[in-house]
């Protein structure tokens, strides 16, 4: 049933895209981007999952697992877990920069409506 996770990731990503496309409030646009990020974490962690597997740790495997079973690959995918870790840090950093920019826009233009921020329009 891992496809349910995949589908949820797809739906959440589309919700994020919908938010970015239709909202004009800058904070909500940032929230839409965060939704898209979150869906990627769900997708990556779900892709790393293996049925009946254990954590990718080479130490006292749980009952029923031999030491060899771990090395044969009866574990969750460590590379994808690492990619999720990377994605979380990047997500935090990008969200912080966006929010800082949003606060500045709000202070300069006295609005959060993206449609009112049009000083650069020719």
């Amino acid at each position, binding site marked *: 049933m891992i496809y349910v996770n995949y589908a949820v990731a797809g739906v959440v990503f589309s919700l994020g895209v919908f938010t970015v496309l239709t909202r004009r409030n800058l904070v909500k646009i940032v929230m839409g981007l965060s939704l898209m990020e979150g869906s990627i974490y769900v997708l990556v962690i779900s892709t790393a999952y293996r049925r009946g597997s254990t954590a*990718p740790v080479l130490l006292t495997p749980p009952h029923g697992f031999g030491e060899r079973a771990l090395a044969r690959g009866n574990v969750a995918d460590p590379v994808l877990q690492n990619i999720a870790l990377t994605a979380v840090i990047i997500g935090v950093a990008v969200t912080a920069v966006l929010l*800082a920019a949003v606060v500045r826009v709000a202070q300069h233009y006295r609005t959060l409506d993206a449609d009112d921020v049009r000083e650069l329009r020719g």
Partner: protein
Amino acid sequence: MTRPDERELVSREPVHRLWVGAVLALGLGAGLLLAVLDLPDDTAPLPSIARRAMVEALPAFRTTEPVSAVVYGFRAMDTFGETFLLLAAVVSVGLLSRTREPRHGFIGEEKAGAEEQSRSDPQEQETAQQREARAGERVEAGEGDSPATPDDEPVGTPAPERAHAMTVVTRLAVRLALPLLAVAGLYLVTQGYSPGGGFPAGAVVLGVVLLVHAAFGYPAVRPLVRPGRTEAVELAGAMAIVLLLTLGLPLAGSFAASWVPLAPEQSLRSGGLLQVFSLAELVEVASGLTLTVFALMGMQHDWAADPEDES
């Protein structure tokens, strides 16, 4: 039927091309669903790259945790790039959140206007609203008549509480939880399943700082988060990472190669380069995240013209 004053309170949500957005998002969603159906399911064999990480973590780095071996070993170059992405983000937030005036000897709005005010209308008195706002500003800056530390205020003092802190219940709970959390963070980076938890431990350090801030107020964390000092710590972490990975070039033949001697697994020094890299990452992530969060919280009013004042 809403009364006119009620109607004004309901915020109007600005929406842009709702139906176009809905159709596009639905179309994208359908495409994504088709795409994920083609992904391997949870019984597929691990990709060869993951199997290689599992098999080689122990011989290559003497670590029992392949995820750390991937983060700081096999994909060290990626982590290196990511570290500097984080640094770039911290610098961007720092630049964006700074006021345009120079930090030292700036002329505040009030000071700049005081002279003109005394010329044009020397008789004007401070209104009650202005007095209240200025008193509030002084309290926020820590100059008010609030007790020096929240614990100086006797328990049972009637509200409003003037100290920059939560109630005694929250303070006690945080005092009990803080050492546990701090030790858990340090355990993540030094031991865990095996050494190498710099990123999560950095986030735990930020959590500890934020808990102190929430429970005891800004004065309690001010020395910890002073930008001048924390920026230096963060850059020291970044320099250490550059140095550690570059030393691989002369000592082990390639950038980011492990040149630190390997110790037996499950010991403090196991993992070779992984452990020192992860420690430097702890410094970098903890100070970077702290700087970012406090820069965002402390964003002051920028010197922008208020359209209402101009008219």
